[in-house]
């Protein structure tokens, strides 16, 4: 083909490309207007809150905002020497605290710093009450006055903490979320008794994988059967598969409680038929077993549906062809049928795994202490301890973990190999 020297022109003399653009612009605008309401809804109610939450995981303006003069003055102080800051810093603190007490923000700062070091919250409350009565002009010097007020003000670690957390952004929440802490000497692991999040992340990951595997093992034969039945029968049976969706998640989970508890149906039956002694009833709930059983049941349809829709599209002639070519049933399944059902396995596994890794209600109800997920801890920090920064950091790590796994899946299996039908 030869290169064209002149651009192609439309009948009216304008370049063809521009004519096409103009004629398509209307379509594009229409398309945009059609999605605009949903887009706005999603942006306002979903994307913005998530972005805000993610931002909170590094945001730390409270120290600099509440104690502006103190953080300024602390810049000069070298935290490596274990000596206390000088009078200038204490004077600045007095000014800041007086203002903070007036606007009642000192208790909030207290609770924020209490996440890092226990006792700070009560120190700030106590100090606030006294400082209210101080006279900033006449009561100098303040260093002794502070030490007089509470000897905790003489603890260099408190001042190190204040200096560490005076920047506007901090990695502290993230370090906390992986069982590390900030010290003047750098990042250090937390005391063993305080380490909990890595364990929770590992448990969440392991249990989600276990649930995904269970769903696959239980779902594959069902989907296989359904896809090989006549359409009428399989539609009827598919309703049974979807039946759990008609019941509230809470009801289903509670039903598992009835079944699994020590005085529950399963244990009662086992004891009645004599398989178990009355004294050694099985602990089936409020542990990992309970969570895996209940969540496998709840997530099973999400495995069966993509598997079924992929298997429906595999023509029976492939297996027949394999058999006519000399393959026995096992070979025909392993070499011909199974590889073609892999896209369904991929889709189902991703769906179940991602749903499982962020699951909250079921582990909360049947998980006890050993069967809870990281999401239960996030919920705790959101609603009980009100440490939103830590909750945001944990959530971000969870999000990143899912994205990394998704990427790994894409590299290993190929995301093109995922089919929902």
């Amino acid at each position, binding site marked *: 083909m030869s290169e064209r020297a002149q651009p192609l022109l439309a009948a009216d003399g304008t370049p063809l490309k521009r004519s096409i653009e103009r004629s398509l612009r209307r379509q594009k605008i229409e398309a945009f207007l059609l999605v605009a309401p949903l887009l706005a809804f999603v942006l306002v109610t979903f994307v913005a809150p998530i972005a805000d939450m993610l931002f909170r995981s590094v945001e730390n303006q409270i120290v600099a905002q509440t104690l502006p003069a103190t953080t300024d003055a602390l810049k000069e102080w070298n935290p490596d020497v274990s000596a206390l800051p000088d009078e200038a810093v204490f004077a600045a603190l007095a000014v800041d605290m007086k203002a903070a007490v007036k606007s009642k923000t000192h208790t909030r700062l207290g609770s924020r710093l209490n996440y890092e070091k226990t006792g700070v919250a009560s120190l700030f409350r106590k100090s606030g009450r006294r400082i209210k009565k101080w006279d900033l002009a006449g009561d100098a010097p303040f260093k002794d006055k502070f030490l007089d007020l509470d000897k905790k003000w003489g603890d260099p670690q408190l001042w190190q903490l204040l200096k560490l957390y005076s920047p506007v952004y901090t990695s502290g929440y993230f370090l906390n979320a992986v069982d590390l802490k900030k010290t003047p000497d750098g990042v250090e692991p937390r005391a063993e008794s305080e380490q909990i999040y890595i364990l929770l992340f590992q448990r969440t990951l392991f249990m989600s994988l276990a649930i995904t595997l269970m769903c696959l093992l239980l779902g594959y034969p069902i989907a296989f059967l359904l896809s090989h039945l006549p359409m009428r029968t399989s539609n009827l049976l598919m309703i049974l598969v979807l039946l759990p969706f008609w019941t509230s998640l809470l009801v289903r989970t509670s039903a598992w409680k009835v079944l699994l508890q020590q005085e529950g149906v399963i244990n009662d039956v086992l004891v009645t038929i004599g398989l178990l002694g009355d004294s050694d009833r099985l602990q089936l709930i409020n542990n990992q077993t309970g969570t895996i059983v209940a969540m496998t049941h709840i997530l099973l349809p999400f495995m069966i549906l993509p598997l079924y829709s992929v298997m429906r599209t595999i023509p029976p002639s492939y297996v*027949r062809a394999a058999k006519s*070519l*000399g393959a*026995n049933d096992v070979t025909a399944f392993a070499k011909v049928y199974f590889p073609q059902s892999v896209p369904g396995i991929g889709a189902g596994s991703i769906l179940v795994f991602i749903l499982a890794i962020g699951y909250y209600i079921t582990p909360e109800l049947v998980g006890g202490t050993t069967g809870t997920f990281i999401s239960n801890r996030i919920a705790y920090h959101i609603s009980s301890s009100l440490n939103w920064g830590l909750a945001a950091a944990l959530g971000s790590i969870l999000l990143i973990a899912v994205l990394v796994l998704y990427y790994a899946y894409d590299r290993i299996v190929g995301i093109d190999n995922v089919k929902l039908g």
Partner: protein
Amino acid sequence: MLDGTNPFVRFRNVQKSYDGETLVVKNLNLDIEAGEFVTMLGPSGSGKTTCLMMLAGFETATHGEIELGGKPINNIPPHKRGIGMVFQNYALFPHMTVSENLAFPLKVRGMSAGDVQEKVKRALDMVQMRAFGDRKPAQLSGGQQQRIALARALVFEPELVLMDEPLGALDKQLREHMQYEIKHIHENLGVTVVYVTHDQSEALTMSNRIAVFDDGVIQQLDDPVTLYEKPENSFVAQFIGENNTLTGTVEALSKNVATVKLEAGDTVKALAVNTDGKGGRTSLSIRPERCVVSPKKVAGLSMLKGRIEELIYLGDHIRCRMNVAGNDEFIVKVPNTADQLGLEIGTETHVGWQTDDCRALDFKQV
């Protein structure tokens, strides 16, 4: 015949029912010699594919015996029958390359890698697809996929190859080309082929013998020439090629010539092939190319009056639709010769044929 005694494939009194109420295949008896190309031809639902699937082992016969090489195979699973099969939509494994597809039957037989490679190469050469070994089936055109499917069914050198409407998805030109290709491969390899189709021209082109199926029964089993020239019943006459039908009652029967009084009142003579005897109703079958249109009666021919209703010019012949003895779908193929008779629509004229070309068959309402 194999060893002069047993046919290679034998269906004996085979019946098949899916629901226990109706028979899809009713008492099938069919012998196929080694090296033959036999086509099962029939409309959809006539039981021809069911027969093929029973032979392949994917359906079990409700009653009767199927023998392969003299041994009953009813209880042998498909993968042990060693029958090659080409499927309607090729059934090439989409996750394997062309070479892997061809290697599949060899590998499951535990052949060494070197032999596999050698045979795959030869099979690709046979269908002129050598350059395509590394492609996936989805990257091939329909005709190319068809060739690979053929090569795969032949690569493990089966003695019997089954083909289930393998050319159905191809366009007309490619289909005709592939018919010749399959025919040549069959001639070169000497393999026995059982072919299922509903396309009669496909059947006539390739087959040694054709079994015409209808309603679960073989209506006629013959070579293409006999089948076309001497259909034994009305169904075959109408199903194979174009056919004119006139219905009437047998008035007299002498030797093999029947005198038939048509429903319109005329009397004609016909070759008695399949009639119920004197007084029985019959359908007369006359091929359009065996009819002559003539303004005057011609000596030695059976002549009837007819009116020309429609003329279609088709180059090599003119298709002339006439109203003859009450049948206004009576077709005559008039050869395109210099003396064109000046056919015109609306002309009252005569149509005639040799008595032997008019076959009196079982009565069938048109």
